[in-house]
C-alpha cells in the first residue's frame, strides 16, 4: 500500500534529518505536531503506518527510517539511515580524512573492548598512529568534542561510547568491517556494545543493560539464560517508559 505523502510527512522527515535521531516519545509528539500543523487528521498509535508511508518513498533512494534501542535507557530511537553505503559517507562532508581515520580507530577500540567503551587516553594514543596526517592532542580533544556534539559519540567521565544514532546508522558498516568481533545480545539479538557478560568462561554471552533489567525483572534467582550459571552482576532497575504526549 503506497500512500501519498503530505506536508505532515515531509515536515517529520525534515525534522528528523536536522536532529539526527529522535526517541520514541519524541517521535510521537513530533508526529502529532506535524499532523496538526498541516491540518491532517492525527491518529495516535498510527506512528508506524505514518513512518512506513515515508519509508516506501525513501526506498528507491536507498534510505530508510530505522528503529534502534538505546543501550543506556532501553528506549527505542528513530533515525534516517543510508542503506546503500558501507562507508561513513554521512560524515564525509563534515570531517577531514584524518579526522575520519581517528573516528574509525575509536570504533576499533570500542568494538575490541568488552564493555563497549573507549578510554580517552587510548584514543589520544591512536592519534599518534594515524597513517594520514597526525593529530595533535588538542586537535584530538577538539575532534572528540565535535563528535559528541554531532551526536556520533557519547562521553561520560573520560570514556567514549557509540551514540544510539551512530549504532543505528553504522550497524551495516560495523557488521561488514568487523565480522569476527561484532557481538550480539543474547536476549534481543541486536548488535551489542555496552553490556553485561556471563562470567562463565565457557559461556560468555553478552546482554544489554536494559535487556538484563527486562529479563530478570521479578526473578529472585538469577541465572544465565544460556548456561544456567549464577548471574553474578548487579541487575539494573528497569527504566519506566513514560508515554508523555504533550497536548498543547
Amino acid at each position: 500500500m503506497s500512500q501519498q505523502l503530505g506536508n505532515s510527512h515531509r515536515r517529520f522527515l525534515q525534522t528528523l534529518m536536522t536532529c539526527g535521531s529522535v526517541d520514541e516519545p519524541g517521535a510521537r509528539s513530533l508526529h502529532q505536531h506535524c499532523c496538526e500543523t498541516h491540518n491532517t487528521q492525527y491518529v495516535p498509535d498510527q506512528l508506524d503506518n505514518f513512518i512506513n508511508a515515508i519509508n516506501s518513498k525513501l526506498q528507491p533512494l536507498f534510505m530508510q527510517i530505522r528503529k534502534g534501542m538505546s543501550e543506556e535507557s532501553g528506549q527505542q530511537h528513530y533515525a534516517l539511515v543510508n542503506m546503500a553505503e558501507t562507508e561513513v559517507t554521512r560524515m564525509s562532508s563534515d570531517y577531514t580524512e584524518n579526522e575520519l581515520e581517528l573516528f574509525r580507530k575509536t570504533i576499533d577500540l570500542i568494538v575490541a573492548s568488552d564493555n563497549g567503551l573507549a578510554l580517552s587516553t587510548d584514543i589520544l594514543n591512536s592519534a599518534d598512529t594515524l597513517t594520514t596526517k597526525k593529530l595533535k592532542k588538542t586537535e584530538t580533544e577538539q575532534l572528540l568534542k565535535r563528535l559528541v556534539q554531532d551526536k556520533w559519540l557519547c562521553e561520560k567521565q573520560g570514556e567514549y561510547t557509540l551514540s544510539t544514532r551512530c549504532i543505528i546508522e553504522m550497524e551495516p558498516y560495523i557488521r561488514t568491517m568487523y565480522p569476527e568481533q561484532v557481538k550480539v545480545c543474547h536476549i534481543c539479538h541486536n548488535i551489542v556494545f555496552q553490556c553485561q557478560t556471563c562470567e562463565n568462561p565457557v559461556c560468555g554471552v553478552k546482554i544489554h543493560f536494559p535487556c538484563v533489567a527486562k529479563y530478570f525483572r521479578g526473578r529472585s534467582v538469577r541465572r544465565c539464560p544460556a548456561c544456567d550459571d549464577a548471574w553474578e552482576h548487579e541487575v539494573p532497575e528497569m527504566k519506566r517508559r513514560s508515554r508523555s504526549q504533550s497536548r498543547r
Partner: protein
Amino acid sequence: MTQRKRATPSSQRQHGVSALQEDEDDIPFTQPSTSQVQKALENVTPAQLDHKASEVVQYFLVKQQKKIPVRRADLVKHVVKEYRNIFPEIMKSASKTLDQVFGLKLVEIDNKNHLYILISKLENVDGPHTSVSSPKVGLLFVILSVIFMKGGVVRENVIWNTLKKLRVDPGEKHAEFGDVKRLVTDEFVRQRYLECVRIPHTEPVEHEFHWGQRAELEVSKVKLLEFLGQLHDQDPQLWSQQFKEAHSSVNPPSS
C-alpha cells in the same frame, strides 16, 4: 572513501566572488543542448536515470546537513560523471524527488559559478525538536532584523555593537557561540544567510552586511516584522517602508 576538501573562505570576501571557485583541474562543464540530451537519453535506461538521480539526491542531502551550497562542477565530477550528457534530465528528476519526498526546493543561487542550495518549502513553525528555538537561529534572527530595519545593508560595527548590547561580544569567547565573529562572518556567510561585502577605500578594512540568498528565500519578512512588532509593542504598519517592502517581495512559501 571520498575525500572532500574543506573550502577555506577568506575573511575579506569580494562581492559576488564565491570562495568555492572552480579548481583548475575541473573539466569545464557546459550544459548540453536539448538535442544532445535527447540523443544521449536514447542510450540510457529509465532505471539508470533514476539511479543517478537518487545519488544526486543523496549528495544534496548530505551537504544540506551543514547547509553548504553545492557546486555544479563537484556534482558532475563526483556523482553524475559519465552521465553528464543527460545532466538536465537527472537534475529535473532529482528536483522532483526532493520536492515530493522531502518538501525541499532546489534553487540555483549563483548563475555564474553555478551553486545550488536546498530550501524548505515548509514554513518555519515552532514545535518539538525544531531548530526555530536554537540559540544560533535566535542570533541570526537578531542580525537579519537589524539589517532589514536599516534598509538592507549595515556596517559591521553596527552589528557588533548590537550584539555587545545583548552581551554577545565578538571580541570574547562566548559560552554558547564560541568565536562569535567567526560564526557571523564565516559560518552564516558560508551558509548564505548573510553576505559580507568589503567597503572599498576603507583602512583598516571594513565590511558591510546584507541578507544572503538563503535568508532571502527562507525567511519571511512579513513574519519578521510581526515578531518585531510584538517585541516593541508596535503595529508593524508604522514601519511603513519596511512594511511595504515585506509585502511586495516574493513571499517565501508557507505551508
